[in-house]
């Protein structure tokens, strides 16, 4: 079951959303986000822009490698979703 870590900026928007959780199954990053969307409606829009594409300041890493929405996810993958550091 893929292990997902989410940025703290999402927590106030979705009651009950943990910073770390395991998904049932996901073939790709987009699948993983869509699974989160099923449990917390509206979450996909916070990470995914029109296209679809990842929002420009949201970075996703699969097992430590920079990923896109179509990047494959394995059963025991770790997904880190990062709100990119910028500004002051």
């Amino acid at each position: 079951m893929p292990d997902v870590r989410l940025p703290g900026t999402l927590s106030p928007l979705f009651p009950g959303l943990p910073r770390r959780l395991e998904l049932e199954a996901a073939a790709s990053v987009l699948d993983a986000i869509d699974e989160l969307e099923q449990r917390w409606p509206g979450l996909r829009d916070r990470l995914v822009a029109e296209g679809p594409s990842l929002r420009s300041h949201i970075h996703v890493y699969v097992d430590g490698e920079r990923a896109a929405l179509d990047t494959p996810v394995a059963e025991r993958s770790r997904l880190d979703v990062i709100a990119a550091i910028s500004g002051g």
Partner: protein
Amino acid sequence: MSKTLLTVATRKGAFILESDDRREWTLRGPYCEGWPIYHAIYDPTTGSIYAAAASEWHGSGVWRSDDLGETWEMSSEGLSYGDDDGRKVSKVSTLARAGDRLLVGVEAPGIFESRDNGETWSLLSTLSGQHGSEAWDDPASQPPGHLGISGFVTDTGDSDNFFAIVQGIGAFETEDGGSSWTPRNNGLRRDWPSDWDDVGFCVHKLVRSSNPERMYQQNHVGVHRSDDAGKSWTEITEGLPGDFGFAAAVHPHDTETFFVIPVDGGHGRTMHEGKTTVWRTRDAGSSWQPMRNGLPQENAHLGVLRQGMTIDRHDIPGVYVGTSTGQVFASPDEGETWNEIASYLPSISSVDVAIVE
């Protein structure tokens, strides 16, 4: 007992200022999780506060509070051009109530509406077919900080008749709820070439007086008045220290009284000579008076954005100004005297005022 409620949108969330007498104010916030807020309004139809937000990380949405700011929810459901359109909603810039429609203006330029008080949204219009509209969505032709649809003029009792401003293009009026639009820029000045006679104007702020025939606007070049509901415009800049500014407000009971805040039109975009000044006309722009009593007059290089001034509906109306450096100034007497009622807020995008029970 009624109180005066000032909704303040900033680069780091929304704030509420409230007062029983318009002299002593209390401040609450920040709200909306510190998201950048471009425009926040109190909606007299529902009693809710709405805040148009755009996060660099998490995209755009509209926050809503049904309890005067104590709790908030955010929705962006339907607030998208879709995956196949090519345009993206980079920010939501402005909000207005028009009858049973809650309108939001976005960039790339478009208008979305909500019929369920901000729960869900749907695309109402992109004003397609207007002269020059094919270029509106090209990022290369958009100025820095582009807002897309940068303002509305609406009637809270009329769903179908309202004005929308396309930033850098001009003002347009619809009388059929956004199905068709008419440019309302006749007589405006512009100091640059345009391929078209009816568009290519830079309307910063458009307001309508208690007589709908009488409108005013602060333009990129000049302050203008209309006496025929926006069908034609006459420049009334003479007497002001400059022709550039953003903010404007019209007296709620007197169509002759109107306020603007001229600022340097170059890179600075702060008030002239470092003197904080709201300029008022009592005769529809024939003459102007500087209102400075209580405002800082030395080394005060303050800027005010297009939604940064508002006026309440008391018998003697109060005027409110929020600056891009986080001060809020309030006048309880039509601009005669001023007090600084907040000093250290984040950069202010908008102020909106309401009288609530």
